[in-house]
């Protein structure tokens, strides 16, 4: 079974440019999460999809970040325009859908390393 995949693995862009990150969850996983780790700090939650719906987007830092999950399969996270402080590692995770608070394990992708110059 293929794991969570993310593309690209690395991205270097200049301030003001746009970058789009992609995440393909494990097949059949309805839950999809985005997290970010800024250098030296904690991994922080960004948002959570259940299928194509945004369940929780409380961690999105500002309106320069736009996440989509059309069709409930893969997801994209677009940063426009990118700022220096957006540099970090962006992780995607997925889990099966279960009703109720099951504490279902979240399976992580390898991350996308974003550097904004």
């Amino acid at each position, binding site marked *: 079974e293929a794991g969570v995949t993310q593309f690209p693995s690395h991205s270097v862009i200049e301030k003001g440019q746009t970058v789009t990150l992609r995440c393909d969850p494990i097949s059949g996983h309805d839950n999809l999460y985005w997290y970010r780790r800024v250098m030296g700090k904690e991994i922080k939650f960004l948002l*959570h999809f259940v299928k194509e719906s945004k369940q929780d987007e409380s961690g999105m830092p500002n309106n320069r970040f736009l996440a989509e999950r059309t069709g409930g399969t893969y997801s994209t996270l677009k940063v426009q325009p990118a700022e220096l402080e957006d540099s970090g590692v962006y992780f995607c995770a997925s889990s099966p859908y279960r009703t109720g*608070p099951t*504490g279902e394990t*979240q399976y992580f992708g390898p991350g996308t390393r974003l550097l904004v110059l």
Partner: protein
Amino acid sequence: AQTVTQSQPEMSVQEAETVTLSCTYDTSESDYYLFWYKQPPSRQMILVIRQEAYKQQNATENRFSVNFQKAAKSFSLKISDSQLGDAAMYFCAYRSASGGSEKLVFGKGTKLTVNP
């Protein structure tokens, strides 16, 4: 809001020895889940072990075990018979079981080095 603290930025252990990584958390909730994730160099993060707060028995997975002290809000990870492949960043994480957010709240991580 919940917070997770890992007070050891780096730890080292000799191969075959035992090491304990510390994690404390702060929450007002009574029901939650705790996790230890491992991220080897240039590889993706994988779950090492998980603990349900309502369970008094400490979770174990082969050479990995936890010491869960609910009253003290402590959740340490013990690695026995350390192997070179255990070298990685280890992250402690918390997740509410209240049915609201499913997000994981992470600590800053502990970098574990295993010396041959």
